[in-house]
């Protein structure tokens, strides 16, 4: 009986020891893996920052609105009087925003919004900017006042990029 108990006790010890050895190996493996992961992550430590707007796009928008056609009428004046982009300024805006920034933004959209429903996007604009930027967007807004009570907003939308790329 005594012998049997001793044998059983030893067997129990063997089982316990194996458990501890396996636990030790697992702990060491986890530690090594964690160090490896940290070593990998540290190589590419970057700042993550929010970038509410793109200064260069904003500057281009100002330049675009100030451009004159052959009759020396500036784009913002054309938009105020016509309520939409026209055959002169729509292709120009495409050249500036869709082509100049095609490396930076997958999509870019110019649209006009106003207090009056009639001033919302119309045919010419849809021809050049079909659809809209669907992902999280940044907007450049410039409000053009028609008169005291009525304004027209030029909205330039593009995907927010800064925080992701950094």
């Amino acid at each position, binding site marked *: 009986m*005594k012998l049997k108990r*001793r044998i059983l006790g030893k067997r129990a010890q063997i089982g316990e020891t194996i458990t*501890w050895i396996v636990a*030790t190996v697992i*702990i*060491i493996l986890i*530690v090594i893996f*964690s*160090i490896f992961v*940290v*070593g990998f*992550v*540290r*190589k*590419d*430590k*970057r*700042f993550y*920052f929010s*970038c509410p707007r793109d*200064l*260069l*796009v904003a*500057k*281009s928008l*100002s*330049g*675009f*609105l*100030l*451009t*004159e056609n052959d009759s*020396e009428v500036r784009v913002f004046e054309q938009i105020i009087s016509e309520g939409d982009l026209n055959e002169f300024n729509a*292709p*120009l805006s495409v*050249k*500036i925003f869709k*082509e*100049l920034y*095609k490396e*930076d933004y997958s999509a870019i959209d110019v649209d006009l919004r106003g207090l009056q429903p009639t001033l919302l996007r119309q045919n010419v604009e849809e021809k050049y900017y079909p659809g809209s930027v669907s992902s999280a967007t940044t907007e450049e807004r410039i409000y053009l006042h028609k008169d005291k009570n009525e304004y027209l907003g030029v909205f330039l939308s593009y995907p927010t990029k*800064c925080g992701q*790329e*950094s």
Partner: protein
Amino acid sequence: MSKGKLNKMNKKGDKIISVYWFVILFIVAGAVAYMAYLFYGAPYNARVVEERILTNQIADCLSEGGYLKEGILGNENFKENFLKECNLNFNVEDVYGWKEQEQYYVSVGFYEFDANMPDGFGNELFNITKGNVNLKIAEDLKNLEKKREVDRIVIHYTESPTLRSAEQEFRSIESKSIHYLVDKDGRIVKGEKDENEKADHAGCGIGRPDCSESPDNCCVRGVNERSMGIELVNLGDMCGDETNKRLCNFGNDETCKQICQDIGNGIEIQGQIWEKYPDEQVNALSDLVAGIVLRYNIPVDREHIIGHDEVDPGRKVDPGPAFPWTEFIEQVKQKAKGGVYVSPGLARSFYVLDKTGKQYTVQISAIVGKKEKNEA
């Protein structure tokens, strides 16, 4: 087994378990501390942020309210003092020898806006370049596979008065090609050959023996295969041939000499007038060469950095006696101490008008450097 013996064994087991736990705890705590050190000890990569800030700062300096500020386009004074005019100060810190070697590269190009051209870029009107050109070259070459061994750098002169005329000449002669052209103001232009391609810049005339076989009237063969060719915009002997004499408004040799000296860029050496190499040009060349010697592990000495005249003595004289070899090699040595630079780089553009309503596209390239290896 007696009860006392069993108790003793249990206590011994408890001790072993305690020691084991202590060791495990020590390992885990040590690993956590090591990981914290690894992670927090590594520097942040702030270059993309810095490049964006730099680009915005330059854009703000150049334009306001949709218009290009006055007195910028074509203004050599603004170009000269660009950093000061735009309140850019790169000397505020001195990590990794920042002060000793510029770790930034800024290039601003002003183009006519041309709606018929891709991206609206028309003719280039004005260009401002500051900083270490190797940052730009390292950026361009980042993914370039080295396909050949290079152990020589050969310096030439173009024998033409301007960068444009030199480029035209290279385009028109099919058998001649180079890797880089350096203008008098320090602007570096990439030649038609990539660094990993052989350029035909230091070949030998037909029938000329190899210098290893006969020392008389010989030429060192096979230099093109293992060298980089760099051309400096320089006339060389300013009164030497009809083309150059024409630049001095013809006349006899004496008249030509007098005119060249009066212009102020001619220097008389052994009875001939040689065009001086401006400091900006030599400085840019040493930047460029320092990058090449680091990329290809070339020793900085006169055996490996040579003139065309040393490849083909007797037939060629460039870069000529006006080239300041001693100062140039010293500059390369100093600059090559630094290491190779890499940077993700940033080139962005905006559309702008001048007060007359003329349209422009302005492109800003900003690179903030980082030493990657050979950190001195």
